[in-house]
């Protein structure tokens, strides 16, 4: 049995603005094992992004406990969170979020710089990651010189270059046409096949089927957990 990578128990998230309390997440229990490919679905506003932000240590939960690789991480300082994020988590966003001033190579290199990796090692890692997504020949380009699909591939390379424990993707195909979208989904599937753990938020049931496990959120709660193979059957 694969070991548990992420363990959430009773996670809550409450936003308080101008005396209105929004319960974005209530009592979430979730366990993600090493090597799993999980999708999170649900209607707009149900808390998908909030959950992903907590998983990715971008935000702290209002209650509950979160263990990453067996270590509690719910209440860490900002700098500790940055360090763990840098080593353990790779992000892929809907709008790519590449840094326009930096070349493709430098974008992929950035997390490794923050980690303090020596430059020789960085170079090998970056080139490996770029080859993996088929963008090795574009290393010297600027993001603005690439198509949307190509930009998202670079973003994927940046996410995996640091060999994180888990890839978090929030609507990675949202800004792409269906051909490019499928290409990126194929890329994620390939990464999963080679052992990556992936957690992806998506609206699109077609793409949810790429995952082996689907989680449905409604109004901040998990209402259904399913297995995509069973669903598609």
């Amino acid at each position, binding site marked *: 049995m694969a070991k548990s990578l992420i363990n959430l128990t009773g996670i809550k998230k409450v936003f308080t603005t101008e005396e209105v309390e929004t319960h974005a997440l209530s009592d979430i229990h979730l366990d993600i094992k090493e090597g799993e490919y999980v999708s999170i679905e649900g209607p707009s506003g149900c808390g998908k992004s909030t959950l992903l932000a907590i998983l990715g240590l*971008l*935000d702290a939960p209002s209650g509950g406990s979160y263990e990453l690789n067996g270590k509690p991480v719910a209440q860490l300082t900002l700098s500790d969170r940055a360090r763990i994020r840098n080593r353990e988590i790779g992000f892929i966003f809907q709008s790519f979020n590449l*840094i326009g001033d930096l070349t493709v190579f430098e974008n992929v290199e*950035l*997390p490794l710089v*923050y980690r303090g990796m020596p*430059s020789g090692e960085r170079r090998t890692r970056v080139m490996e990651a770029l080859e993996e997504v088929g963008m090795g020949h574009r290393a010297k380009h600027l993001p603005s010189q690439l198509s949307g699909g190509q930009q998202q591939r670079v973003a994927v390379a940046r996410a995996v270059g640091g060999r994180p424990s888990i890839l978090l993707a*929030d609507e990675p195909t949202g800004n792409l046409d269906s051909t490019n979208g499928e290409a990126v989904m194929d890329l994620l599937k390939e990464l999963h096949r080679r052992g990556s753990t992936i957690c992806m938020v998506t609206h699109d049931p077609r793409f949810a089927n790429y995952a082996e496990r689907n989680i449905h959120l409604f109004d901040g709660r998990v209402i259904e957990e399913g297995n995509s193979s069973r669903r598609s059957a």
Partner: protein
Amino acid sequence: MTTFLLDLKHALRGLLRSPGFTFLAVLSLALGIGVNSAIFTALNSVLLRPLPVNEPSKLVRVSMGPRDESFSTPVFRELVRNQSSVELAAECFMPLSWTQGDQSRQITGSIISGSYFPTLGINPFMGRLLGPQDDQIPGGHPVAVVSQNFWKNHLAADPAVLGHTLTLNGHPFTIVGITAPSFHGDYVGMVPDLWVPLSMQAQALPDPKNNRLESRNVQWLQLFGRLRPGVKRPQAEQTLLALEEGVLQKKREARDGHIQLAVMGSLPPEILNVMNILLPALQLIVLMVLLIACSNVANLQLARAVARRQEVAMRVVLGASRAQLVRQFITESGLLSILGATGGLALGALIMKAVPSLLPPAEGVNLVFDLSMDWRVVSFALLLALTTGILFGLAPALQATRPDLVSVLKEDAAGLTVRTGLTRRIFVVAQVALSLVLLVASGLFLRSLGKANSVDPGFERSRMVLFSVNPRIMGYSQERSTALFEEIRQRAAALPGVRSVALGAFVPLRGGKTTTTYEVQGQDLPKGAQPPEANFNQVGHGYFQTMGIPVLSGREFMDTDVPGAPKVAIVNATFERKVFGGHAIGRRLVDDNKDPIEIVGVVRDVNTTSLGELADPMLYQPLSQNLRGDLTVHVATSGDPAILRGQMRDLVRGVDPYLPVNELRTMQEHLRVALFSARIGALLLGVFGTLALILATTGVYGVMAYNVDQRKKEIGIRMALGAQIRDVVRLIVSQGMRVVFVGLGIGLALAWGVSRLLSSLLFGIAATDPLTFAAITSLLIATAFLACFIPALRAARRDPMTALRNE
């Protein structure tokens, strides 16, 4: 590649990517640092730099306390003979008459002991310097060393002058050497034209009454020394103190000073005091300009930080620590600062090139400053640049590196706004306020300068020629002097076009103040009280008529007010009013010997120290009863004084060919010198104020341009919903101007306070001159309005759809 180099590379690229930002920021910094390094260069060369001699730290100046700095020749010789902890040298500045063909002019000489140059430890530029061998037989060493400047300016930089003779005070002196360009004398900024040995005192500094080489009664030499190896200053001071009683041959009273040794390498105390205030004050003003420049850069940085918020947030998501991000920002502002400092130093050097032309024409004193930039100036500029870079890079860095990370997920740029609005508005308020202060100050100076020509100083200002003569340098006795001046007076009065001629000791508004204490007969001072002071002048007969100063009651001085006759004085109207509270004629003052002085006339008040001043009590005494060596001849003309000016040198030459004529000028020219401080004040503050205005305007423009850029979507929506261009412009401009008005309010309050400090330097207008305040405020409002209006108009003119699509 190390992380630092990587940061540097990214910073450099970032700057190149936004050339507009980089240009504005570097320009702002270069201007700010430029004026600062210029002022600091002056401060450095006047106050900080050591003398360009061998081991300057071992030099000490010898005095008997702060007000007693002179020693007699025998005391100097005995101090040299009786101790071995300090090598002593003596000098005395003096005016010299230098005759070339039939022209004589006054130059500045320094008479020095044979130990002078050896003690300083410097080398000649050419020939040799003076030494002990020139200081043996009185009158036996007619040699001189000329300064580099004198050689260049008056001897055509001719190497063949060595061995030639100069006629000084009518005696031939052989030029034996030229000093190096770096040597400016042992007082900073005051360079004699030449040096002659102490043995030549009788020729160079004739004194009919005393034998200065033998007499203990004439204290005339300034002493300095070099500590011998291994001797510390307190130790040397003890040695000299131990000699004091024996050498000075009298028990000094407790209130007298004792021998002191002070560090050398600075200005004479009177000048030092002025510079000690003036230069730091200027430095403060230019630091204010730098502050404005820096808030500009900080503002631009904030704008950029906001534009880069998505990027910064993404870096944080990728695991950048706050420290790493801040370092990246600081690297960028550090880079800007270095660029700014380089530009600033270049600008500072340019400014300093222009400075010598701004200095007042000073006859008699050679003001020479080495205004070159040395390592101190460069480090000062770099230090300024780095401090400002870090300080003003830090605020944006700290603000920008705390983005709301979740917003990155939401693909919502609006949520990523870095909250910089308040900080940016504070910067604008500060800029507007500071530039208002500087501009008001320069406006006041300009206005007062404009008023200068219409201010009535209380005496004739247009048809008057002045020149002064100092017969003492040619060894005239008191009686010969009196006869000489009478001769000059009569010859001048006989010239066609001359209305009248009179003698006076001090010309009003010559910069500085001469006062005397007085005592009213019958009014005993309380014990221990200081006697009151009044402004003071000594004038010959016909002075008031010549100067056009009306005699209000009583009479002028007359030929009959001679030494034997009863002592008399004339006072001004303010003296009469304040001291006697009624008629002054016939009232009596007493002199030091309690002899009565009768007041025989009351004259109208005149400006003595600054144009348009409120008069102080003033006392005039007749020259005939109070003899002096040097006097100014006042010549009232009926026509253009410039025509007569040319004849004065010939006139004096006819009386004594060796006698130099000094400070020959028309009264108008004299007043221009008197207005120097106002002119330089207006000029400097004008330049700094304009700089501040430019910087502040760019600042306001930057903030507004950024604001409308931030709000382009909102503006697009408003336009799409039917708003007119003018509605949008009005909305934006009014928001910008609100901030400007806050700055103006604070600035006006500050300027009001500052202007009171300036009031003593202004004439003809009140320090709170409403016109100046109104004009400057309007100027600022107008420029600020433009700075708001242009970006607003540009935003409103944009096609609303591009703004909306553009997200």
